[in-house]
């Protein structure tokens, strides 16, 4: 007992820090062939010809492929289920490349160096086409997204979402304060240390094995099947250990090509991107432009909001079509606003495609909402915390868009307890100073989802079984992205089964041996999968006690599992002995499978408080104090929860102050295409961080738990921007707050 709530080390921690974990590219394999890609230097061009003569003449080159020699099936790399309706506008190698970094050709060779050298020898002619490099330009490129033959037209908007709730006109007519704020958010890159990589090889029965660091083996299977036009069951996908993802590896980008090459050549094929390629040819967070009008009553009630958002999703649809809706969903779950109008649209540009990134739309929409609300509070003379307390949703609130119950929503507790712990009242009143360095405090609230409900595939199946040695195996399509979800799930199982973590073995996802799961996304691991594991553990507990009842000649209800033993007041048997006893009688070892189908999607809430010091001469911002209050339901492992919060703050701090891949509006190239040019917050940029966990159980979560992984990064940027604006009296709303922008704002 007592595993839940404990600060237990990662179950794979020692293996990781001692270098024993074998990442996808680590194992030496005889006969391994290496692929390297040729990328488009143009933002939009027709690929007219490819001369591979010189490349093919190189010793060690196995072959060269391009659009004329590869399948041209349309696919969408963001699907996670076969048949999912998302615009299938990607090709492995398109005849018309749509962004700098789009794929033109691939070389397969005996070594990576040969493959890369041969790529340099490919001679390609292009017909360069006009490119759209800004969302403004994209708006003019309007029309239907598909033509009569269901072919993508690349016209805008790709997707829309709208909400008209309550009487917005009346709300603004009644308001005592109206404010309007325009916020832009940048494109940011995931910066996982492991660059994108995939391995594939032929297996028996005309199948292809794919081994890659992914967020869903079933998504890989579905996407590759769509791209290659083959049956999904010909693909056997396993998840390798992953050196960071943050959403960047949610979409299988390399897997279709790698599988195709393995199929064509019968070789074990590896395709690994360089750092530069990972920056320029994978995915980023989408850039957004948003405008929010807020109508406030004299008592601080938000009477209405009117919101317009444009999302630049880049050159391919991917999951970008979901973003306007996702942003709306997250926006309306934070405050109780009687009248809302929302118009969101996603547009194509000839830039790197965007995709999943921690929070999936939440950081963008909450940056807009929370910066806008802060400026409204300032204009109307309200304290930012008091204003939010006046409006934040409470437990069991129903959201106006999907009509979902938000569960045990504890945003108000985060506001109250966070403000107290941070000393908000006193600190918010301090003058920023008049010298070179100005201090200010700021805060922001946020909410995020727990899983994909009401999506119809929001369920998962977990199996727990007793092994011959007395250990327990957890089988479920699990994708720990390094956040420690395997550890958290093992803790849940161990808690129910009276075991220690060391007794639970977690198997990584494998399409051949696991039942379907939609993967590590949407903050669903603890809340959804954790509940499936808890239910399976309860069922296994029952099965083990039933079996032990025979061995011990006791009634099952008198038995409990404790410390790897089944025991009653008078007798006990260890799990290992029980397994032996059962095996000797030719009896199956206890095993339990449970499917958990989500019935709710409660909100996780967070309120972050920051103090910054701004150098008014250089425009540099230093975060000097930080407090993060989180409505977590129950922290299964407080240490891992804090780790998620610390990491979320690092990403959010970069989002607020430094990070932007910055598409050059003239050439379509990324300016931030390496760690030298893309500024991340390093250790000296981090401030001391305090975390405050509000643990009020969510009835639908395992042991009351809710998600923390994504929300941890959501309120960070607006909290910091609000702090900078408080310190300087500015209205900075374009992220990131680069020194140039700060200096310009001070001069105006």
């Amino acid at each position, binding site marked *: 007992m007592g595993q839940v709530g404990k600060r237990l080390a990662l179950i794979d921690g020692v293996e990781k820090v001692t270098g024993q974990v074998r990442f996808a590219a680590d194992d030496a394999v005889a006969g391994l062939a290496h692929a390297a890609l040729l990328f488009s230097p143009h933002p939009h061009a027709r690929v007219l010809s490819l001369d591979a003569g010189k490349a093919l003449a190189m010793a060690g080159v196995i072959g060269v492929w391009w659009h004329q020699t590869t399948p041209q099936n349309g696919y969408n790399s963001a699907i996670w289920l076969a048949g999912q309706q998302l615009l299938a506008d990607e090709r492995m190698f398109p005849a018309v490349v749509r962004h700098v970094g789009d794929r033109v050709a691939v070389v397969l060779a005996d070594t990576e160096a040969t493959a890369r050298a041969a790529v340099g020898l490919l001679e390609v002619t292009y017909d360069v086409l006009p490119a759209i490099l800004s969302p403004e330009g994209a708006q003019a490129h309007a029309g239907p997204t598909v033509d009569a033959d269901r072919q993508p037209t690349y016209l805008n908007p790709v997707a829309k979402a709208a909400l008209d709730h309550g009487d917005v006109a009346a709300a603004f007519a009644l308001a005592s304060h109206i404010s309007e704020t325009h916020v832009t958010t940048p494109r940011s890159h995931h910066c996982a240390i492991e660059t994108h990589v995939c391995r594939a090889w032929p297996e028996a029965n005309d199948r292809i094995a794919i081994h890659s660091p992914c967020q869903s083996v079933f998504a890989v299977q579905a996407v590759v099947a769509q791209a290659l036009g083959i049956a999904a069951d010909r693909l056997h996908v396993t998840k390798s250990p992953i050196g960071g993802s943050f959403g960047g590896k949610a979409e299988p980008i390399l897997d279709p090509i790698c599988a195709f090459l393995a199929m064509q050549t019968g070789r074990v094929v590896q395709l690994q991107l360089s750092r530069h390629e990972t920056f320029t040819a994978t995915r980023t967070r989408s850039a957004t432009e948003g405008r929010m009008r807020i109508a406030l009553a004299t008592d601080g009630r938000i009477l209405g909001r009117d919101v317009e958002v444009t999302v630049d999703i880049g050159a391919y649809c991917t999951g970008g079509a979901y973003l306007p809706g996702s942003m709306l969903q997250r926006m309306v779950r934070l405050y109780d606003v009687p009248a809302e109008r929302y118009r969101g649209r996603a547009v194509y540009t000839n830039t790197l495609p965007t995709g999943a990134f921690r929070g999936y739309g939440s950081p963008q929409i909450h940056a807009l909402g929370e910066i806008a609300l802060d400026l409204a509070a300032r204009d109307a003379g309200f304290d930012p915390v008091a204003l939010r307390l006046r409006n934040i949703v409470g437990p069991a609130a129903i959201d106006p868009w999907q009509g979902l119950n938000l569960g045990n929503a504890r945003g108000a507790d985060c506001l109250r307890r966070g403000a107290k712990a941070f000393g908000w009242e006193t600190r918010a009143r301090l003058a920023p100073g008049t010298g070179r360095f100005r201090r200010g405090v700021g805060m922001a609230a946020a909410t995020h989802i727990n899983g994909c409900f009401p999506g119809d595939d929001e369920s998962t199946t977990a199996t727990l079984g007793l092994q011959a040695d007395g250990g327990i195996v957890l089988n479920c399509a699990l994708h720990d992205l390094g956040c420690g979800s395997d550890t958290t799930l093992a803790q849940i199982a161990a808690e129910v089964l009276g075991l220690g973590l060391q007794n639970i073995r977690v198997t990584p996802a494998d399409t051949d041996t696991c039942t379907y799961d939609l993967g590590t996304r949407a903050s669903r691991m603890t809340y959804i999968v954790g509940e499936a594991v808890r239910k399976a553990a309860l069922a296994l507990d029952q099965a083990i006690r039933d079996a032990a009842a025979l061995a011990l000649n006791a009634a099952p209800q008198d038995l409990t599992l404790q410390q790897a033993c089944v025991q009653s007041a008078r007798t006990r048997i260890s799990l290992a002995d029980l397994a032996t006893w059962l095996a000797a009688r030719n009896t199956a070892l206890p095993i339990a499978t449970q499917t958990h189908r989500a019935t709710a999607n409660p909100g996780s809430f967070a309120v972050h408080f920051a103090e910054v010091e701004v150098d008014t001469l250089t425009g540099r911002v230093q975060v000097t104090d930080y407090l993060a209050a989180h409505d977590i339901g129950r922290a299964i492992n407080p240490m891992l929860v804090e780790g998620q919060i610390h990491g979320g703050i690092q990403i959010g701090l970069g989002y607020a102050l430094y990070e932007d891949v910055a598409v050059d509006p003239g050439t379509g190239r990324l300016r931030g295409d390496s760690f030298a040019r893309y500024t991340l917050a*390093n250790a000296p940029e981090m401030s001391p961080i305090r975390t405050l966990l509000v643990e009020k159980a969510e009835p639908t979560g395992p042991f009351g738990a809710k998600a923390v992984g994504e929300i941890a990064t959501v309120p960070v940027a607006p909290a910091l921007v609000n702090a900078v604006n408080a310190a300087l009296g500015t209205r900075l709303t374009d992220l990131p707050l680069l020194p140039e922008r700060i200096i310009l704002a001070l001069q105006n």
Partner: protein
Amino acid sequence: MTLLNVCRPTSLAELVAVLRGADPVHLIAGGTDLLVGSRALPDAGRLVDLTALPALRGIDTTGPDIRIGAATTDAEIERHAGLALRYPALVQAAAECGSVQIRNRATLAGNIANAAAAADLIPPLLLAGARIAGLTQGGAECEISLQDYQAGSGMLITTVILPAEGFDPDSAFVKLGPRRDLTIARLNLAVTAQVQDWRLLEPRIVAGALAPRAIPLLRAASVLDAQTLTADLLRAFLDALSAEVDAAIAGRASHGWKRQAIRGLGIDLIARLLKLSNRDPLFDGVM
């Protein structure tokens, strides 16, 4: 397939023999510029690793001139007590290069030969009137001033000399990059002067990252010369720094920011030179 051969001479004689050989010679020291992923290595000739040559290592501050071996690392410069006493600006610059790992490998001559606009060691070296001794492509000895050094000329630097008359213990270096540490300078400044009774005598200032090569800021330095440091004087100094930026990069995208940022960096520079905090009351009235 690869025609690049690597050699690691351990004596000057061996080195000279390699230089006189027929193969084209490429030099490598710490490799922190040469081996960065985005750069192409030469594909033929001899790659000569200079890190095993004792003659190219070490710092001698015992004579009137300071002599520093070309392959001395940033970390060795950063930790050298004698150098810190005689010419702190260079020690401070080395301490602010890269990260611990980079400083353990990066060398003085690598920084000079790489000749980046943002190189941090070059401003204090130029300020000190540094001379560089070395070998020509044919292996002959030569010595020129750093001012006259042309990157890509093929000269192998063996020693960097700071002539006694060129520098002063009252010296300082400051830099400003996108983040606090492990950051490439968007601006850096080095100053040397004699500090006497709140006055800087014969101050000289060099700025990096304002032009393709580091440049002296003569006008800004002249504002300070022999004047008592008051808020008014400092303000005039900062105005002069902004004017220097205007002269150097007017019209560039970074202009507006740099002309303001250099005021902050200018205060930091004077503060460091005077061993004061940049929050000292002296600077209060300057804003």
